[in-house]
């Protein structure tokens, strides 16, 4: 196989991101949407860490940044879940089809 | 008489009626009498004002600045041509109001209000001397007409009303474009130009390129052609007529079609002689198709009112033929046709109306033997049908004669230049002959209709119909009296507008000669003239 370079990691991150994207767009269960959002965020993390490793190993800026993304995604997941619970209580379901008030 | 703002009174009096009517108590007899008296007064006033002003040599004109910065002013005036049509309008409105006694029952107040608004809009169109005011009234007329058709109409009234409005709006879009184009060209020539007819009519003479003239001509012409109606744009008329109640279709056929032809004559043919000369072959060609084709279609109609509607489309084809002849006789014929067709088609629709109020059916197959049962209606139907047939000594004949003589003797064009350099070898003479065949076809469907509806044995179903009521008889008698009077003494009518119309046709003889001279032997006249570049200097 050829040398594993930055390009591989970025393609991997891209693939992961699109799988996450597809999950967000197509899944019926709200929780699965949350999961897929996490996936997308992790893809970004991979990218950052890969850049850090392949471009300038001494300056760990990339990794610091991925930590921040970590915090943000954690916050986001928790708030997302809270909203989901509230939605579930009022709508008695998590089926994305049911939340269709966003129209004229 | 001069200090009286004559024209504004005529235009806005009906509007005042329209405002008064809703406040009257909702009692049928009172509303009918009020409207009759109102429209009667309007008619008398219009005749008196005409005699007082233009006839006495002082043409009435009023001016009031309205939007100076836009160059739009309330500018109304009337020469004999407008007066003839104004009087025709007020007369037909009186007839329509009288005809409404028997045929309109529900919501009378709104009905009369709408009729009077419609009248003021139409009078506005005929009297406007400012292109924007003209366009304003032209559009205003749509709303009452739409309501009148869609509320009191027959089963498919919404379809017909919407179709009517859409067709006219489609046309007025082009008209607005042409109006603005013309205005800005005039403005570029001299910055103080306003929308007034006087300013805009001179534009084409100041060396405007023929191409632009043709475009402006066509812009205006489309709106008028749809209103005329001209063949490709005519399908709204039969639907509107079939669905509209009798008095409304009397007004629709009597006056609204004249707005189209009036506009054509005064605006298109009046201001763009060069474009008119270039386009005359096509106008005459479509006019002939208009006559012959709709005569054929009319023959195959099963619905009596549709047959009459198509017959009025066919008769308006004469106006096109007359105008396309580009000479004084043709123009006079066209205007005469406007007047006589107004009376005749109003009469025919009145006949259909009287039959409809009794039998509640318009299918010719279900009718028969009315001659015996309704002798008075039969007498008037015979008289008016003969007039529409073009029988001499009745209204239709002088118009038809003038159009045929004018078209046949005109040297407007020998060949019609067609696409790709080919030429249709149809001179105006051959087209007139074909239109004459159309007239014979026209005679066929009218006579066949008379035979099937009035003659033949009495149907048991209709044996107990009661004859015409006094109000219907009065309307039919008034219309027939005028038709016979116009037929016996046509000079009374034509001498009124003869001077103006001949003046309008005056530049054309020179224009035609110039067109023929400009085209080298064998070359097709239109293409060489159709240059979009500015004409070099004043060769006009």
């Amino acid at each position, binding site marked *: 196989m050829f040398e594993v370079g930055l390009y591989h990691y970025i393609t991997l991150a891209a693939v992961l991101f699109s799988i996450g994207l597809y999950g967000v*767009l197509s899944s019926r269960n709200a929780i699965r949407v949350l999961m897929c959002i996490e996936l997308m965020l992790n893809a970004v993390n991979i990218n950052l860490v890969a850049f850090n490793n392949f471009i300038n190993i001494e300056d760990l800026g990339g990794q610091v940044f991925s930590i921040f993304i*970590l915090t943000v995604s954690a916050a986001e997941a928790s708030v997302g879940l809270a909203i989901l619970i509230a939605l579930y209580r009022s709508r008695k379901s998590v089926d994305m089809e049911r939340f269709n008030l966003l129209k004229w | 008489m001069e200090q009286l703002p004559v024209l504004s009174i005529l235009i806005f009096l009906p509007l005042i009626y329209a405002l008064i009517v809703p406040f009257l108590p909702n009692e049928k007899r009172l509303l009918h009498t009020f409207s009759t008296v109102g429209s009667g007064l309007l008619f008398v006033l219009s005749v008196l004002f005409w005699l007082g002003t233009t006839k006495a040599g002082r043409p009435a004109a009023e001016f009031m600045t309205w939007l100076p910065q836009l160059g739009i002013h309330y500018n109304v005036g009337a020469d004999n041509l407008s007066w003839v049509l104004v009087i025709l309008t007020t007369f037909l409105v009186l007839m329509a109001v009288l005809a409404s006694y028997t045929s309109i029952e529900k919501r009378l107040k709104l009905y009369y209000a709408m009729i009077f608004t419609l009248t003021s809009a139409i009078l506005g169109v005929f009297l406007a001397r400012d292109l924007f005011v003209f366009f304003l009234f032209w559009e205003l007329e749509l709303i009452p007409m739409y309501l009148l058709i869609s509320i009191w109409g027959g089963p498919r009234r919404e379809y017909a009303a919407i179709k009517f409005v859409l067709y006219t709006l489609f046309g007025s879009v082009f008209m607005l474009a042409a109006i603005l184009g013309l205005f800005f060209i005039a403005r570029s020539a001299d910055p103080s130009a306003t929308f007034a007819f006087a300013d805009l009519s001179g534009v084409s003479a100041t060396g405007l390129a023929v191409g632009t003239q043709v475009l402006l001509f066509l812009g205006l012409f489309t709106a008028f052609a749809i209103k005329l109606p001209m063949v490709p744009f005519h399908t709204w008329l039969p639907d509107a007529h079939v669905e509209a109640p009798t008095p409304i279709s009397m007004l629709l056929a009597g006056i609204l079609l004249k707005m189209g032809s009036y506009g054509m004559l005064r605006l298109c043919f009046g201001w763009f002689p060069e474009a008119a000369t270039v386009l005359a072959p096509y106008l005459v060609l479509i006019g002939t198709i208009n006559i012959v084709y709709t005569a054929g279609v009319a023959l195959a109609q099963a619905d009596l009112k549709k047959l009459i509607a198509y017959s009025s489309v066919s008769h308006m084809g004469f106006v096109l033929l007359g105008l396309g002849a580009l000479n004084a006789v043709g123009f006079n014929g066209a205007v005469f046709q406007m007047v006589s067709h107004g009376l005749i088609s109003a009469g025919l629709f009145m006949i259909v109306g009287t039959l409809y109020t009794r039998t509640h059916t318009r299918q010719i197959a279900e009718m028969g033997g009315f001659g015996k049962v309704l002798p008075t209606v039969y007498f008037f139907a015979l008289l008016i049908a003969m007039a529409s047939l073009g029988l001499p000594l009745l209204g239709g004949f002088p118009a038809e004669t003038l159009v045929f003589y004018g078209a046949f003797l005109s040297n407007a064009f020998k060949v019609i230049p067609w696409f790709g350099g080919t030429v249709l070898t149809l001179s105006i003479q051959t087209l007139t002959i074909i239109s004459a065949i159309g007239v014979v076809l026209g005679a066929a469907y009218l006579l066949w209709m008379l035979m099937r509806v009035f003659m033949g044995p009495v149907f048991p179903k209709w044996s107990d119909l009661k004859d015409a009521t006094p109000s219907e008889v009065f309307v039919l008698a008034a219309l027939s009296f005028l038709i016979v009077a116009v037929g016996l003494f046509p000079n009374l009518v034509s001498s009124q507008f003869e001077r103006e119309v001949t003046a309008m046709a005056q530049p054309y003889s020179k224009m035609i000669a110039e067109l023929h001279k400009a085209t080298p032997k064998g070359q097709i006249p239109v293409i060489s003239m159709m240059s979009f570049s500015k004409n070099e200097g004043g060769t006009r």
Partner: protein
Amino acid sequence: MDETTFAGLYQFGFWVFAATMVAGALGVVFHRSIVYSALMLLITFLSIAAVFVLLNAPFIAAAQVLVYAVGLTIVLIFGIMLTGDKPFVDPVGQERPNRFWLMPAVASTIFLGFLIWALLYPTMGFSGINGIFVSLMDPATNPATLPSVQAISTDGGITVIGQLLFSRYLIPFEVASILLLLAMMGAILLSKRTFPEEEGETLATVETIEPYAPQVNIEGNTPSLSSSHSEVEEKETLGVH
């Protein structure tokens, strides 16, 4: 173990973890049951952590395992438990296939294509804002630095990260902390349930909320569920009787 076997191991490791990550991701998206997809998510997180290790970021890998693999998955499992993990049952009985898959598939493939195109493009000498990419991608300019044994042996860069966090990235650090605080308050507020009267009621007496099997009528939305009277319904179900 010497340099070459390590390099070989590195290569091999990358492909293994990449494969498990992608498989896990696909599992999360396509698995019928939500619980299994949660587990798949766990696997994906772990394989991502492994990749981080390969990328000389041991601290991040640890953080990843700690926050995501453990924390988040547990929270999600809680979410699943709270909202019922039975797959949606269509009134007809069989699980309704996910009707809307075409457009999302198209969108994500387009996005994937776009991303890869954005990557490939620089290698084809595209100038402009991607100038840096060009130099970056060229293996000649910067060879892939393998995670040198020595780097791993030291503290894995934690000290350097710590110094950075409190020197250059101090403000983002503080903002992140405030963000976390807010998120916590928000989550608590949103998921707080109003109990009619506090006393005499224990968690046990509160019936669990039956998942509302959606009766889908012709228009596609359940008639009775307009938001206006959902509170009333809620009161009934809770109804202290």
